[in-house]
């Protein structure tokens, strides 16, 4: 599983970071960044949740 954050959509709410800090991080100005190439199996459920609960629908899973 791979995951990306659309920079134009991200609102800096930090929901993904709150749900899965192992995969998501926040940049210095408070917006989400993905810090792994491949999502480890144990975090895939949290990443799916982050994608559905992202307030700005900025997260895409491929």
């Amino acid at each position, binding site marked *: 599983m791979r995951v990306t954050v659309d920079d134009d959509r991200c609102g*800096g709410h930090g929901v993904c970071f709150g749900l899965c800090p192992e995969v998501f991080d926040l940049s210095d100005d408070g917006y989400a960044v993905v810090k792994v190439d491949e999502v480890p199996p144990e975090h895939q459920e949290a990443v799916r949740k982050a994608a559905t609960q992202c307030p700005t629908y900025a997260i895409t899973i491929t």
Partner: protein
Amino acid sequence: MTTVESDRSGHVHEPLTDQFLGVEFSVADHVAYYAELRARGPLLWNATQGFWVAPRHAEVMAVATDSETFCSGRGILTFEIGAEYASPPTMMHTDPPDHTRYRALVQPAFGRRVVKTLDASVREAAKALVDRLPLDRAVDVVPPLAVPLPVQVIAQLLGLPEERWDDVWAWSEASIPGTEIYADEARRAALNAEMMAELMRLVAEARVSPKDDVIGQLATTEVDGDRLTDDELAMFLNQLLVAGNETTRNTISGGLVALAENPDQWARLVADRSLVASAVEEILRWTTAVIYFMRTATRDTELGGVPVAAGEPVVMVYASANRDEAEFGPTAGSFDVGRSPNHHVAFGFGAHFCLGAALARLEVAAVLDALLDRGVTRLELAGPVGRSASNIIAGVTAAPMILHTT
């Protein structure tokens, strides 16, 4: 010992939850009240009106991040229980797919790019207000700082010039239950009519010649050929006036009160400006402007080990969750400008996360930076802090303090 009764649902009534009936608290000490709620259990039933109260961080997060099981369409405040809406009164009352559509259409207006363009003007507005405050003698920071800053920012979002700021303030007051203007029915109606006419005019103008501002974005954003209708846009701007105003105002005033009550924490900011960002988060946690919002279970489920039946509402007490020792540890009751991690829920969480969060954070940071720039070394309370009785908004109505520079 309190009396125990149960209702048709078979759940045991918890009298403490009666504070969430109506719109006013009758407790003097909110913090102690929330601690008592959390100690009683993960989920407490109110038999009077039939709703659950979730006072702990874990259950608030579980509800907030599962919008399929816990919907918003059946009301977000307890006085809405049983209400049927032909169309959702606000975006906060929508569920997917309606919510997905609204959010997609309005989010770009609050995205990183637009908020960045506001950075300089918000900081300028905060600086101008702070620079006019008297130093080294008592001043209530609510009227000259906490009230006007959010109003000026909203006026900017709407593209209204300085001479209209008083109008924006009056429209906002007329939209918020509990204000003096709201209580005056004739005046409220007149202001509402004036506001809607002005908003419709702004919408029409932005449709024809959109600027690169929030209203221009809202008027022109299209997703798959779809865009907001004029009515939706005006409704949304109206919501902006309410949601962006009182919450930010109380976060600013409540934050300054917290910094006055904890002079060691202000001293840390004076010594290290890099703490401003985490101080903003701690102020958000500490003040929690929106005390609660409600969801309704769409199916039989379970929360904190307690069965919840389809149709039962659940009150997420953000203000209590933000003081939960289980999440924030033994220092949950201390105001710590360097707190990390700080997974507060002052903006809610999940799909309905506050749309204006980035803007709110910017406004609070701008106030702190402006006070530091002015050389304020210490904030000292100079009289009793006024707090509103609302059980929805944690309002600070008076915050008299001395801004020391020596």
